């Protein structure tokens, strides 16, 4: 099986994240950048499928130069090779443009059977890339999966919703997106880290992919972020010492908030 995993480098959720004041794009300097956790899970799922069915795992990332760190991590986990789309023209791309570029990049991987993406990136949180990609590539999409299996030329998946679990399937090649319930990603081993140094990474520009630079980036974006304001800090809670009437005090508070 030939599997492609789409991986994005995002600001570490452990550090303070913000947008630049100038153009409301991500302030990549202010926070540590890491391989998005949801994409670690996507890589893990690809590796599990590879372990079960054989084949090759290719990771594709679109992002600035330092996205190589995220790529390196995916390769350390066990992915076989990588395609890195890096071009200054891509700065500020919206989801449509991102999907166009990723579609072209996927096209460079010969004979792929399955594309695995995260359901939603932790920074942009558009949750739209997999669907748009499916449209552009004309492939079936099975999204938001908590379980993925491949049988012959069919991919099967489970999607959990509030109401229950939906069982879905599509014929390969297909695009799937996975949720945080899918698996627990492995930590790279030292052997994996050493091996990653020797794995091939192909770096491509938009021109290499035959994409018009005017269609991507801030200029080519159909949508834009107008303003972003940080969440107000949570106000300190109200402390009630229970001197036998704690229960009724809490009830009074909830009534005051019109909650009961």
């Amino acid at each position, binding site marked *: 099986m030939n599997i492609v995993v789409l991986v994005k480098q995002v600001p570490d959720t452990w550090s303070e994240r913000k947008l630049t004041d100038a153009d409301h794009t991500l302030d990549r300097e202010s926070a540590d950048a890491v391989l998005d956790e949801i994409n670690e899970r996507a890589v893990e799922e690809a590796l599990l499928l590879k372990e079960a069915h054989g084949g090759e795992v290719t990771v594709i990332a679109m992002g600035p130069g330092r996205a190589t760190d995220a790529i390196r991590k995916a390769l350390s986990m066990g992915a076989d090779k990588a395609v890195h789309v890096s071009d200054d023209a891509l700065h500020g791309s919206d989801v449509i443009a991102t999907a166009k570029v990723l579609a072209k990049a996927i096209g460079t991987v010969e004979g792929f059977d399955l594309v695995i993406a995260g359901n939603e990136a932790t920074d942009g949180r558009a949750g739209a890339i997999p669907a748009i990609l499916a449209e552009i590539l004309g492939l079936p999409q099975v999204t938001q999966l908590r379980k993925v299996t491949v049988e012959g030329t069919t991919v099967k998946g489970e999607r959990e919703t509030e109401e229950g679990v939906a069982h879905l399937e599509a014929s390969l090649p297909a695009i799937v997106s996975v949720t945080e319930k899918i698996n627990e990603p492995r930590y790279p081993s030292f052997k994996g*880290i050493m091996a990653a140094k020797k794995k091939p990474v192909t770096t491509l520009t938009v021109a290499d992919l035959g994409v018009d630079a005017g269609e991507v980036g801030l200029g080519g974006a159909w949508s834009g972020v107008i303003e972003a304001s940080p969440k107000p800090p949570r106000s300190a809670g109200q402390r009630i010492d229970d001197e036998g009437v704690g229960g009724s005090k809490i009830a009074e508070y909830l009534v005051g908030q019109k909650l009961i």
Partner: protein
Amino acid sequence: MLDFRLDEEYEALRKTVEEFARDEVAPVIGDLYERNEFPYGIVAKMGRMGLFGLPFPEEHGGMGGDYFALCLALEELARVDSSVAITLEAGVSLGTMPLFRFGTDEQRAQWLPRMCTGEVLGAFGLTEPGGGSDAGAMRTTARLEDGHWVLNGTKAFITNSGTDITGLVTVAAVTGTKENGRKEISAIIVPAGTPGFTVSKKYSKVGWNASDTRELSFADCRVPEANLLGERGRGYAQFLQTLDEGRIAIAAVGVGLAQGCVDESLRYVGEREAFGHKIGEYQAIKFKIADMEVRAYNARLAYYAAAAKMLRGEPFKKEAAIAKLVSSEAAMDNAREATQIFGGYGFMNEYPVGRFYRDAKILEIGEGTSEVQRMLIARELGL
């Protein structure tokens, strides 16, 4: 030549273990420690990521790294918890390393693959109730009888010796008298569960409470002659070599603890207020933290330098002793100061610094006391 930057792969490993300690160890270790429980789940995860195989070649199931890689992992683990760090340290440098160094092909094939994945732990039995510093005075004996070693005696304070996954203990025992009249000491592999080999219940310890430490007794315990590890009569020398390396690893654990004290203190002094100011605004507190950082930094340089010598194949006895001494004292001093900075909360077990305080002292005792390190350093200086 003078370049202390970590190579890319060392840095990637360090970062991976840092994340592992933060995400997998920190959330659960307080509870395990409180209940004196061995961290089986964490050990299994460390095994899966290859930490127990770090310094061993791939042909034995290892990661193809080196001893310095192990030290980096130990430092990052100990920044969060020492019981977990020491379980790895003892497992690799006391449990597996002697087998890798001195074992026959059969012994290596039998044990190394499962030890490298952390599925099986090995322990190292040198210390006895009657004395550890003067290990040559040991009384445990092993006599050869119809193709078997018959062991009798007691070992004290042996790490990783009584877990559900302990596979073997390498025991140092007197196997005869040399021509010069001195004791002939050899090392013998005793598999867990061998009749005549009893493991006591866990000690009640001041610190390292999630680590497994036991007293072992041997009463006519018989193992095959082929369980001799290395040459007969070379046992003591072998153990000393193991201990020299182990000192660098213990130094890394001490640096981790010392740095963990800085991490925790920095967080706390930015939140805690007294007399209308964050306590981090008071110079008395700032200077404490500056001094703590200096100690951790110095101790790290000391163990890096010792490891560098070791990896270059140069003599490193003195440097290893210096690193162990400096680092265990840094850990002890930093734990005391961090606890002071935390005030009353520092004395509560629910805060990591309380755990650091309890875990620091053993670093000045285990794998050679601070007095023994000074003896070694003085001896290297020709005194």
